[in-house]
């Protein structure tokens, strides 16, 4: 715990001295008690030039204490204060070294602060202090000039050499009052007071138009009398103390107010006690700033820095402060104040204040109005949105319920969760009954497996389409198309349509198609049979005639009919009932004609090279007839009188789609000069007629070693009919 004791020492007043002695003894007793700390404790004495309660001194002390406690724990500091009371008793300063030594005794101190000149003067060369090597930090020494012996005297500190402050104050005064000629000072005869006088005298050259009038008057009545006589061209600067008639020291504040009231000219000052109490202003020093600067120096010393290593701070910047009330009193223009000046007690602009309130209220009103509008609009929008949502929900519900399609919603187990009216109408179950059923229970037995597979696809692929059989409540079976979609976990949605009629229709169409196919096939068969009957009739007719030529003519006709019948045979076999495979056809035709003309392969051999070529019935009949003529010709004419030979037959489809027959034999050929078109019999005419006329192809005969014929045509004359 820190013990603060304020002690007043008044020389020549024994009662007070005894009291002071008792207080100091008590102080040192307390210090002794506190001198047994567990941790490091700093014992510090502040020796003040003035008296207890003197505002300047108090401010300096607070500055010192504030700087120390900013860095050190408060309970590590033991600070005691000793007042010399120089203001009131400067003429009889009684604190002698011997007396101080007696008061202090052998008490240990780590550091001594002095505030202002008297305390510094006393302590600078104190043998008691120097003998104990106690460092000293002074604060606020006016007229301080460093002699370079700070180290020797174990001290450092902050001077109150306020030279710049003094001149700044005078400059400001001249700016405000250009007609100033004389500056009247009141001094009190203290060292501080005298030091300040010296400072002004030192800067006198800067103000050649000004005269300085220093008056040493420390009683207030004398000071009042002086200032009341001041007139135009004068300004007043109070320095030093003010005593009343009984010798009691007045506070700066009280004295300044009285002096200002009595003084007809503006007053200026330097210390904070006077600003706000009657002076116009000036470059103002604060005791707290002084104390803070001194406290920081002391802190460095406590931390081990030798005092001599810390050069004294020689000046203090201060602040330009002015009192609006005094400026107004003397009609001094604010615009003349130096830059950076602060004006105290400046009333706020009432209109600006009103405007401020008005603006604030207006803004608040606008904000509130906007909020109310937003709330109203928001509420209306919410209501509209809610109504719209409700209508939308009702509409969707209506769509769901009135959909002509049956709609089912089922969980993952297939149990129905929701159904619409369409579902009820389609199945014959009431909605309530349907919700007790599952998909599997509604499926017809024939579709159960397919239904399971469909449901699995919905799970795996997210959707599926199926056509399944279901069973109504009355047991009847019907078909439904099921468009199912997986909505989410345990929710599957299906739109279903009754497709029973369509399915039945499709089955009817299928049956009808099968019937038609059967009929067409039968027709091909019948056609072929009828041709067989025609052949039989021709053959019987020929046999009855007995004429060899007639028999041969009939035979040729028979073979032509057979070649056509073979087309129908192939159509009957064809998968699509409209195309025949020419390769197969040619092979069968060769066999048929060989039998017809009773030619064995040992007599006439066939070489075939046949591509897979399919043609429509329209091309197949002329193709068959042409091939019949070409092969028959070769068999009848090329190898007379048992001559042996070969007949080559090739069939090819070119890249451009054209089809080429090539039939050649190595038989006897045709007589020289034979004209195929002019001299040919019916068979050759048939070939030209069908090849060039009907198929719109080319017919090219070549006779050399045997006979060759090439027929080329495009199978693009006809289009499939189905």
């Amino acid at each position, binding site marked *: 715990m820190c013990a603060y004791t304020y002690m007043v020492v008044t020389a020549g007043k024994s009662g007070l001295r005894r009291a002071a002695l008792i207080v100091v003894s008590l102080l040192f007793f307390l210090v002794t008690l506190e001198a047994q700390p567990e941790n490091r404790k700093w014992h510090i004495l502040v020796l003040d030039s003035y008296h207890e309660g003197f505002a300047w001194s108090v401010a300096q002390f607070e500055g010192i204490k504030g700087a120390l406690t900013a860095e050190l724990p408060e309970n590590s500091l033991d600070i005691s204060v000793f007042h010399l009371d120089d203001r009131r008793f400067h003429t009889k300063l009684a604190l002698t070294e011997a007396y101080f030594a007696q008061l202090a005794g052998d008490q240990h101190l780590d550091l001594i602060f002095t505030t202002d000149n008297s305390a510094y003067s006393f302590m600078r060369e104190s043998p008691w202090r120097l003998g104990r090597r106690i460092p000293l930090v002074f604060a606020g020494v006016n007229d301080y000039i460093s002699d370079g012996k700070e180290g020797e005297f174990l001290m450092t500190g902050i001077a109150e050499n306020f030279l710049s402050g003094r001149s700044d104050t005078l400059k400001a005064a001249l700016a405000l009052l250009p007609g100033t000629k004389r500056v009247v000072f009141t001094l009190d005869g203290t060292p501080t007071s005298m030091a300040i006088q010296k400072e002004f005298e030192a800067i006198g050259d800067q103000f050649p138009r000004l005269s300085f009038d220093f008056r040493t008057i420390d009683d207030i009545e004398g000071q009042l009398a002086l200032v009341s006589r001041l007139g135009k061209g004068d300004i007043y600067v109070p320095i030093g103390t003010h005593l009343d008639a009984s010798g009691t020291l007045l506070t700066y504040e009280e004295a300044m107010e009285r002096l200002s009231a009595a003084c007809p000219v503006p007053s200026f000052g330097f210390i904070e006690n006077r600003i706000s109490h009657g002076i116009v202003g000036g470059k103002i020093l604060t005791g707290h700033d002084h104390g803070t600067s001194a406290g920081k120096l002391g802190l460095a010393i406590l931390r081990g820095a030798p005092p001599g290593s810390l050069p004294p701070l020689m000046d203090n910047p201060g602040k330009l402060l002015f009192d609006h009330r005094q400026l107004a009193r003397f009609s001094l223009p604010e615009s003349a104040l130096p830059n950076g000046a602060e004006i105290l007690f400046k009333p706020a602009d009432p209109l600006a204040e009103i405007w401020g309130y008005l603006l604030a209220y207006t803004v608040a009103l606008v904000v509130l109005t906007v909020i109310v509008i937003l709330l109203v609009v928001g509420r209306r929008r919410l209501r509209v949105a809610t109504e719209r949502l409700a209508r939308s929900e009702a509409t969707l519900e209506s769509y769901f319920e009135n959909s002509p399609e049956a709609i089912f919603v089922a969980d993952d187990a297939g149990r129905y969760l929701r159904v619409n009216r369409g579902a009820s109408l389609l199945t014959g179950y009431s909605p309530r009954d349907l919700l007790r059923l599952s998909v599997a229970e509604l499926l017809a037995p024939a579709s159960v497996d397919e239904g399971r597979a469909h449901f699995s696809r919905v799970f795996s692929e997210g959707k599926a389409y199926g056509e399944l059989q279901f069973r109504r409540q009355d047991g009847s079976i019907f078909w439904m198309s099921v468009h199912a979609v997986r909505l989410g976990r345990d929710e599957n949605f299906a739109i279903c349509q009754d497709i029973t009629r369509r399915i039945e229709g499709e089955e009817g169409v299928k049956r009808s198609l099968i019937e038609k196919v059967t009929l067409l096939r039968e027709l091909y068969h019948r056609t072929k049979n009828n041709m067989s009957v025609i052949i039989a009739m021709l*053959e019987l007719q020929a046999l009855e005639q007995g004429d060899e030529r007639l028999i041969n003519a009939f035979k040729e006709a028979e073979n032509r009919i057979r070649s056509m*019948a073979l087309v129908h045979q192939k159509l009957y076999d064809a998968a699509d009932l409209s195309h025949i495979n020419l390769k197969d056809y040619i092979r069968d035709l060769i066999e048929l004609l060989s039998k017809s003309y009773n030619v064995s392969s040992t007599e006439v051999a066939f070489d075939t090279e046949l591509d897979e070529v399919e043609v429509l019935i329209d091309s197949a009949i002329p193709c068959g007839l042409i091939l019949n003529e070409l092969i028959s010709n070769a068999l009848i004419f090329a190898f007379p009188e048992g001559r042996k030979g070969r007949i080559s037959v090739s069939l090819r489809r070119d890249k451009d789609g054209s089809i080429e027959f090539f039939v050649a034999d190595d038989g006897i050929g045709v007589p020289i000069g034979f004209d195929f078109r002019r001299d040919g019999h019916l068979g050759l005419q048939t070939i030209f007629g069908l090849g060039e006329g009907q198929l719109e192809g080319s017919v090219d005969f070549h006779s050399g070693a045997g006979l060759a014929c090439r027929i080329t045509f495009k199978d693009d004359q006809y289009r499939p009919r189905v």
Partner: protein
Amino acid sequence: MKHTRILVVEDEFMIASQLKTNLIKGGHIVCGIASRGEDAIDMARKEVPDAILMDIRIRGSQDGMAAAKVIRTFLDVPIIFTSGYADHEMRDQALALQPSAYLLKPISIAQIEELLEGDFAAK
């Protein structure tokens, strides 16, 4: 193998006539022409032919295959099936009865001659 007594079962008159003419021309004897299955069975029983040319699709309550089955029960002679249909189903049904031959119409007399003089002659 001349003078083979052949029963022709064919419901198409002109075809039957053609076959008969050609068979006779080839030196064979056509012992009867039946156009219905049941007639074929009766004639086979009465005439006891050496061979039967049996059209598969004929009129009557029994088709060629049914008639052949019955005839087999009392007469062991070559039966040559003939048919205007090339579809596999019918051919497979017919071959299941193990006929002596299966000829697709139009049938040439040479084919019949070949069978009569070749395979069947050996029996």
